[in-house]
């Protein structure tokens, strides 16, 4: 589950022949139109290409701008939205996903305690956030956060 949305983004990091790699300037932060969708997408792309600090920055910008709205949406729900209603909860979905991405990036950077905290926000506080998998279904970052936390806290 944790890798679901990375599928189409993975090409960024997985492409290229071994003998054909060359240094690439890290792209500057581009918040675009500052929508939650743009920021979340940029966070995914940064994570996929291994720019973990940028992924964190995009994710945190998304939370900075939309977390209040996201938490209102979460508070109004008693269960995850049905597929035809998911997009009504856009802020919750994107902020929850951003916290998940942030947890992934922090994990890659070895910032274990912060990563656990980020995953726990998704798991415990933004539980009904959903994200779209390009293969054709919604998934829940909160569900995906469970094993991430176990991996960081446990001895597996």
């Amino acid at each position, binding site marked *: 589950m*944790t890798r679901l949305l990375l599928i189409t983004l993975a090409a960024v990091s997985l492409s290229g022949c071994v003998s054909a790699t060359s240094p690439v300037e890290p792209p500057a932060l581009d918040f675009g139109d500052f929508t939650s969708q743009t920021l979340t997408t940029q966070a995914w792309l940064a994570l996929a290409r291994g720019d973990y600090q940028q992924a964190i920055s995009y994710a945190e910008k998304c939370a900075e701008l939309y977390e209040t709205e996201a938490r209102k949406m979460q508070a109004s729900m008693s269960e995850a939205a049905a597929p035809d209603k998911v997009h009504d909860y856009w802020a919750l979905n994107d902020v929850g996903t951003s916290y998940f991405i942030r947890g992934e990036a922090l994990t890659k950077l070895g910032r274990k305690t912060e990563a656990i905290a980020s995953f726990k926000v998704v798991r415990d506080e933004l539980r009904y956030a959903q994200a779209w998998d390009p293969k054709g279904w919604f998934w829940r970052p909160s569900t995906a956060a469970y*094993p991430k936390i176990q991996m960081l806290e446990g001895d*597996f």
Partner: protein
Amino acid sequence: MRFRAGYISVFFAVSVFMFSEGAIAAPKPGSGSVVALEKTVDGQFRLLRNGEPFEVRGVGYVIDDGTDADALALLAASGGNAIRTWGIDQLEIDADGKNLLDLAHEHGIAVTLGFWVKHARHGFDYDDVESVNRQRELLREAVLTYRDHPALLMWGLGNEMEKDFTPGASEETDPRVWKELNHLAGIINELDPYHPVMTVVDGTPASKIDSIRKLYPRLDILGINSYAGATSAGERALQAGWDGPYMLTEFGVTGTWEVQLTTWGAPIEPDPSTKAAESYTAYTVDRNRNPLRNLGSYVFLWGSKQEATFSWFGMLLPSGEKLARVDAMAYAWTGDWPTNRVPKLESMTSPVAFKEVVAGTTTYAKVDCRDREGDTLRYSWEVRAESSDRRVGGDAEAAPPSFPDAISKGQGTDRIEFKVPDTPGGYRLFVTAYDGKGGAAVHNLPFYVP
């Protein structure tokens, strides 16, 4: 075979009647087990086996090479108490000269006895009366043969038989499937009123749950197969309207169809520790979230199976060594880690990993693996072609060819040199670390020759 509402305090007085339908002259239990579902007034459930509460700590079981005694002993030692099979044919394989049910009973393992209900996607025609009747007769024979075995826990009537794996297929299911299952469950109820009927489905959208409730009223326990979404699988079924008990019947790792792909379309296998954490998490979260609706679970898969790779779903190597998910489930089941843990694979690296690489290149790979008890590790490396026989729904796949001559230096150690094959295509480099005490770790890195 309907359960009736009852109270815990009066259960023992009524247990043997719980699966009776009154009009059917049910046989009295012989030497076999008596398993009942207890429903309390507040809509919760417990499974009772010979009068005692029984929480299923189970595994899907596929050992078919005569090593059942070892595999079952390992399961029992790990805290497992049940196995699930898919077809009656699994019982007919002699293992150590004994039937699987007998061996399971010797190890204190209960068996959900699977009966393979044929799939329309494999050509089964519900309008073919002869085929339908033949399947009914096979079930009748199976129930009469095995109903009195003391290891029998329940009947596993079908597995994902409703599913159309065609991309973009509708979630709507063929109503004839549920009607026929209801008929088949009636056969079981008639011949064996002492064991519940569970049917295993793939996913629980509201439309499916609605069809089951309307057309399959004899179903006692809903079995749910779920991989990446296993932690919330039960929750989703309950939200979709399922009002009975359920079990997670396949879970444990993110599926091959749910993970990140390489640019050439090869699914990237999670590392052993990630898979172990996923198994542990799915089991504990689902169990704790839905107490007394979840009767237990069957983690996939005790044994080994080629599905994208030979290591993706199996909890044991083909040679019998346990992998990290066995230890994780032992921890989940018992609260304690096993005395001797499997090796922990920290990392596996190679310059060619996830890359396109020139044919014939000589390169290297290394693995960082440690053993918690300090056991000396032995390593085995192997280059295999990417699977070209990918199927859906868990259908059997052929193992891809291996290239043993590719390893040029260091076989047996934690660092090797190897030659990239000359033939274009996808490949995987596998490493297996053995601790010499029945534990192992296996992982792989894909690469591609254009």
